[in-house]
């Protein structure tokens, strides 16, 4: 190969390298921005589920405290009945939300946050079932009140 054609080959190669190098630098900045945006969205998603879980946990604690009130009258029982219906409604909404997370869950994103969220909505179900038991079902079972009376005499 003679000298001029060698020179032109080098120039051409140099030009290819320069072009690719420039494009890669540009696109790597662009990719970094996209990755950062994705990570920000995941962090935001995790935060929102942590907050949601905490709010439901607070509700569960409030529901438990209601069972420590003595001598609840009929007027309050009506309110408790309304409360049970509202909790059931809230629970089915949360279950629907959980189902929509199936795809995200299968990709392993926010695994802990989603699992904590599911545990908390399970506890919400427990809470309304317990409220029904405490205020409506258990007192009607044979001997339940009598057992309480006998235990207080021990």
């Amino acid at each position, binding site marked *: 190969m003679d000298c001029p054609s060698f020179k032109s080959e080098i120039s051409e190669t140099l030009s290819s390298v320069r072009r690719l190098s420039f494009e890669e630098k540009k696109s790597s900045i662009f990719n970094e921005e996209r990755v950062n945006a994705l990570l920000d969205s995941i962090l935001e998603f995790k935060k929102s589920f942590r907050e949601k879980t905490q709010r439901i946990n607070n509700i569960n604690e409030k529901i438990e405290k209601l*069972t420590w009130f003595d001598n609840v009258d009929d007027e309050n029982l009506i309110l408790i009945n309304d409360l049970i219906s509202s909790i059931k409604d809230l629970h089915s909404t949360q279950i629907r939300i959980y189902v929509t997370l199936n795809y995200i869950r299968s990709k392993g994103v926010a695994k802990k946050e989603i699992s904590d969220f599911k545990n908390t909505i399970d506890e919400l179900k427990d809470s309304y079932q317990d409220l029904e038991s405490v205020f409506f079902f258990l007192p009607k079972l044979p001997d339940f009140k009598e057992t309480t009376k006998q235990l207080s005499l021990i």
Partner: protein
Amino acid sequence: MKIFCLAEFKVEFEKLMAKKSYNSIEKDIIDYFFGKSVQELSSGTRLNNSSETPYIKKRISGRGGFRFYFLLIIKDESLYLMFVHPKTGSLGIENITDESKAYLYKKILECIKNRNLYTLDLDLEKNNIFFKKL
């Protein structure tokens, strides 16, 4: 606080301890029930509308998500563990029926009267629970 249990509780405890995925139960019991005051243990869902002898269902979060059923006799500072079940895993159940809750309630009354109970104590290192028949 003196801690007792029904035979039913001991059976469930031993069943759960035999499974690796549930053997955190011993530590959960030690951490939650031992060395606590009546006030500290008066939390959870009270099932029987009694302030002197509250019958309590307590959810303990953690690996097994255990649900404990126990009775407190405030004036004696005594606690009676009646039943436990995990929420998740192969032995997990969502809840027990109201009839089962009522059965356990009657059973504890009968066993307190007949002293048909086990006591629960800890070893020196406070890592293990020992059951002793009354």
